[in-house]
C-alpha cells in the first residue's frame, strides 16, 4: 500500500554484517535495504538512543523521530501522515 510513496530503509546497529543478514533472513524483512551500522554512527547522527526507533523524513525536509516501538497501527498511521504531509 505504501510501495510507491515511501522509501523504507533499515539501519541495523550494534553487531556485524553476518549477524544482521541472518536476522533479516530470519525475520523476513528483506524486501528493502538495510544499512549496516555496526558502530551505530548513523544511529548517533539521528540521535537514536534505543531500538527499535523510527525516523520519518518528509519530502519537504522535515524530520521527526520516534524513539521506541510503534505498533502496526502506530507505524501505519505515522507513514500515512508522512505521505500526506
Amino acid at each position, binding site marked *: 500500500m505504501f*510501495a510507491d510513496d*515511501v*522509501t523504507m530503509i533499515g539501519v541495523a546497529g550494534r*553487531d556485524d554484517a553476518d549477524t544482521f543478514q541472518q536476522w533479516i533472513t530470519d*525475520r523476513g524483512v528483506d524486501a528493502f535495504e538495510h544499512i549496516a551500522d555496526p558502530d551505530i554512527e548513523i544511529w548517533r547522527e539521528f540521535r537514536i538512543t*534505543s531500538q527499535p526507533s523510527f525516523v520519518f523524513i518528509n519530502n519537504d525536509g522535515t524530520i521527526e523521530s520516534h524513539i521506541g*516501538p510503534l505498533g502496526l497501527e502506530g507505524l501505519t498511521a505515522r507513514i500515512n501522515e508522512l505521505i500526506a504531509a
Partner: protein
Amino acid sequence: MSFSVVNQGDGQARTTRHMLLFMMLRASKKLRSLFVALAVTAIVATSCGGSSGDTAGAASAPAEEADQAAPIEEATAQPSRVATTVTGGQIASAPAEEADQAAPIEEATAEPSRVATTVTGGQIDFGSFEGQDVVLWFWAPW
C-alpha cells in the same frame, strides 16, 4: 523475538539539526518502488518467514566509511542507553549529552555525498532520496 508490538506514546522530536543531513537526502527517486507495505508488516510482526532476497537498488561497491566515523565515535563513546525501550519509555535524546556531541556530528554529516554500506555490501547514497518520503527503521539483532 526481540520486538514489541505494543503501541507506545509519541516520543517524536523535531530537530532542525537534522536538516543538515536531510539536505543530502535530496536527489532522485530511484528507490521509490520498494515494497514498503510488506516491510511495515514484517517490521511490526517480525513473524513472517519469507526471504525473497529482493534488495533493490544496492550497489556492489564496498564501503569506504571508516574515515568519517572517527570524530563521531569518540564524541559519543558512552554506555548504551537501551534499557528504557522495552517498556516504551520515551527517551528524548538527553539534552546535556547531545550538546557536546553536536558539533562533530554536524561536521561529519555535512558532506556532499553521505554514503552508507548495506548489510549485503552495497551502498546507499543518502543524496539519492531528495524529495522523497523516507522512513528509517533503527534496529539491532538483540
